[in-house]
């Protein structure tokens, strides 16, 4: 009994205020509605009303509670429904806004770097370099022959060659084996060195260019032929592999 006398019964305004606070917090996204049992709140409120204010109730305060709690019920029940197309679009839009922010931060870094490089370019434009000697030339890794260079070469030759655009596979007499033999013979005639343009005669059909290219690839795979390209988009020089040392001596 002593304990009961010490208990202070909260006023109805206080309870309504706490529900209002809950309503505001849910609306601002500070509290997850999923984690709150609205049924418990309503039951507690009803028992409180029946026990303390059974004779006279301030309808204005109770009405506020009813509006707020019904709004919360509506929101909670909406959470159970699948998202509408509009909501999905809105969520995607919000996500992309975040992504765009990250993207801009990343992009801005490079933008400021562009400024630095442009300044350096401007300064360097007024300076003429006479020669260039690297101290660590020996440490440099020799540049490997890239297959991409071969692809570039065949592509540019095919573009330049305006002969038959339709490839006649059926009536073609040349094959890779014959072409490989031909190339090897040509190597012997031309001091074991050949360029791509030397292998292709005037008005050479596209099919033959492709066969020459495939034959060269086959010879490279067999280890009989290798190639070098002195500069980007420059002429590719093919040579018999065993004569690499001789070629080096010649270039020196």
């Amino acid at each position, binding site marked *: 009994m002593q304990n009961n006398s010490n208990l202070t019964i909260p006023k109805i305004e206080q309870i309504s205020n706490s529900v209002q606070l809950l309503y505001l917090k849910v609306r601002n996204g500070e509290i997850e509605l999923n984690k709150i049992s609205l049924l418990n709140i309503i039951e507690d409120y009803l028992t409180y009303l029946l026990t303390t204010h059974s004779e006279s109730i301030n309808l204005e305060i109770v009405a506020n509670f009813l509006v707020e709690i019904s709004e919360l019920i509506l929101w909670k029940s909406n959470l159970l429904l699948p998202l509408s197309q509009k909501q999905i679009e809105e969520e995607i839009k919000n996500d992309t806004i975040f992504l765009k922010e990250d993207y801009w*931060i990343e992009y801005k870094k*490079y933008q*400021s770097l562009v400024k630095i490089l442009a300044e350096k370019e401007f300064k360097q434009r007024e*300076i003429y*370099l006479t020669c*260039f000697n690297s*101290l*660590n030339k020996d440490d440099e890794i020799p540049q490997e022959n890239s297959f991409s260079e071969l692809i570039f070469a065949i592509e540019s030759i095919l573009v330049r060659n305006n002969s038959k655009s339709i490839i006649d596979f059926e009536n073609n007499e040349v094959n890779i084996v014959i072409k490989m033999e031909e190339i090897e013979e040509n190597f012997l005639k031309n001091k074991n060195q050949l360029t791509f343009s030397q292998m292709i005669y005037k008005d050479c059909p596209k099919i033959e260019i492709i066969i020459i290219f495939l034959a060269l690839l086959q010879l490279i795979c067999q280890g009989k032929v290798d190639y070098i390209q002195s500069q*980007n988009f420059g002429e590719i020089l093919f040579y018999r592999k065993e004569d690499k040392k001789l070629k080096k001596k010649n270039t020196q």
Partner: protein
Amino acid sequence: MVNITCREAEEIKKAIKSLQEEYQLNNRPFFIQEVSGGFSFATKPEYFTWIKKLYNNDKKYVLSRASIETLAIIAYNQPVTRMEIEKIRGVDCSSVLLNLLKNGFIKVKGRKKIPGNPFLYRVTEKFLLHFGLKSVSDLPPLEELEMQNEKNEIT
């Protein structure tokens, strides 16, 4: 230079430094610039107009903003694929890359082992020479640039 002189690289560097100081003291029209991991004689910028007349034409490239942007991305992320560059730039880069390849600012250095095997690009010595850089590490770190951008936004 190491092979020709049969001296240590450090010794050569010291000699070059003393030459640099000497040229500066005597107010010579040229100086030695450390560029692209090596050294080169370079003319002073104040003589640019005269040297330009001597050569009769200005052969130096002036890169577009798009080209510099692409080079910056490659320099920081090399080896890098076209798709990775495009992801940062947000636009198609194939023509810019082709021009940079043609002019020797970048080179193809293998293929990435992912579906489609795209080409991997790297910057060349010409890139370093063009911007007067000793090496790629001569560029400011990206974190530093980010901090600088944040500071600028606050102010």
